[in-house]
């Protein structure tokens, strides 16, 4: 069974079509790259999967559960690390994780164990009681990742997870994500750092103006020694004005 199945997804904002008849699937255990320019429809698609946005047409299932018909169960199967720091800045990392676990229906005892585990895994123990707003960009990013994993979802969606992160931490996060994927976690990654996608992902989709323009194994995008970046630029380039 595919962990993520999107069929004929369309999202309109008035007359504007943000996502146009998008279909794709992500297999269990896959590390999947989802690329596109700003405004191409990546975030809208992610929002449709996670419930932040409604969609106009199509179906989305996560681990076989329809995200609209059985939205509550579906949401327990997805974890999202968004591009923006959408947290209560005055909460501590421990509180952020503890509260998020609560929203997912985890008991107090479960949360206490899980929160300590994640703080440890992400090197946040030392910063556990500091307010989020006082943390550096890199540590904030770690908190976002840990929050997405608090309920141990089947599908982890990472929207620009290394934006604003220094090189050392970026490599650390890559290592962590690789390990997580090796342990069987299905991951969808969007990033403007194409070397990151090339390094981590086994399959890639490219979206442009709301339409899927390419989908395949990484090797198809990098055949003949080409860099992913070149293929990406070719597939998403605008026709020159006459």
């Amino acid at each position, binding site marked *: 069974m595919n962990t993520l199945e999107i069929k004929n997804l369309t999202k309109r904002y008035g007359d504007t079509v943000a996502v146009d008849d998008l279909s794709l699937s992500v297999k269990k255990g896959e590390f999947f790259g989802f690329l596109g320019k700003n405004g191409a429809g990546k975030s*809208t698609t992610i929002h449709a999967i996670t419930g932040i946005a409604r969609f106009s047409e199509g179906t989305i299932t996560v681990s076989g559960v329809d995200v609209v018909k059985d939205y509550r*169960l579906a949401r327990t199967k997805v974890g999202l690390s968004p591009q*923006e720091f959408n947290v209560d800045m005055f909460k501590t990392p421990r509180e952020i994780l503890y509260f*998020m676990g609560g*929203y*997912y*229906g985890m008991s107090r005892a479960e949360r206490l164990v899980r929160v300590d585990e994640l703080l440890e895994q992400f090197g946040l123990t030392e910063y556990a009681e500091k307010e989020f707003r006082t943390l550096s960009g890199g540590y904030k990013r770690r908190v976002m990742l840990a929050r997405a994993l608090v309920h141990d979802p089947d599908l982890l969606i990472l929207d620009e997870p290394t934006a604003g992160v220094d090189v050392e931490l970026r490599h650390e996060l890559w290592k962590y994500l690789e390990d997580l994927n090796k342990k069987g976690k299905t991951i969808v990654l969007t990033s403007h750092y194409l070397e990151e996608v090339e390094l981590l992902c086994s399959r890639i989709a490219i979206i442009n103006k709301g339409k899927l323009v390419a989908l395949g194994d990484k090797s198809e995008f990098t055949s003949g020694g080409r860099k992913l970046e070149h293929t990406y630029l070719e597939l998403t380039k605008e026709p020159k004005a006459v």
Partner: protein
Amino acid sequence: MKKSIGINWIGLGTLVYQEIQRFVRVSVQTLVTPWISALLYVAVFGAIVGQGIADVKGVRYIDFVLPGILTMSVIGAAFAHSSSSLYIQRFIRHIEELLVAPLSHTEMILGYVIGAVARGVVVGLGVLGIAVFFGAAHLSDLFIFLLYMIAISAVFGLVGVLVGLWANSFEQLSALNTFVIMPLSFLGGVFNSVDMLPESFQTIAQWNPFFYFVDGVRYSMIGISEGSMMLGGIMTAALIAVLWVGTFVLFERGWHLRA
């Protein structure tokens, strides 16, 4: 095998806890400020100005005015709580934590409203505590007193949720309070008996739900009612029902909530 999820009690409890933590964390702003305002109102209008006013409806002016001040404090606290909470969460997109979680819209609305009720009741009890120092803390019917505090907080908790959803600026957030809540509170018999109003205002007062809120609390505290308690109860229950349905419909549509 798929497993359906029933009511997310832990999720709801967490949201309620978060809402309570939110106002406790800034208690000087959320609790102490309305208590000081109430203290000043009671001291100036009740104790100082009230000395020069003859009994109203057979009771000291301070005893008559205190339930109105308490009601006004409860209304302000409940409305401020849910409106600012939802608005700020939308503004910084912190609301997405709830949108991606397995919480139903009923649970989300309940979470905000219970938070508003908690803040309203705590503020109300604090004002009652202040009244003790002025010898004006009467409780003729504790059950009705608590019922009215909870019901009034629920009404304005729901109004606050609607305004928190609608507002796109801090100015809009305060508009309803300035143009609707404050004027209707003052015209609802907070500081005066309805009999003291000009005839045209007396007619308006009969249609002003704030009059019934103040009247209900006043009855529960000093046993005096100027309107129909039955009508007040029905109006309050009807308001809660209508506001609940309206809020639920907007949440279901994702208005200003889900793109």
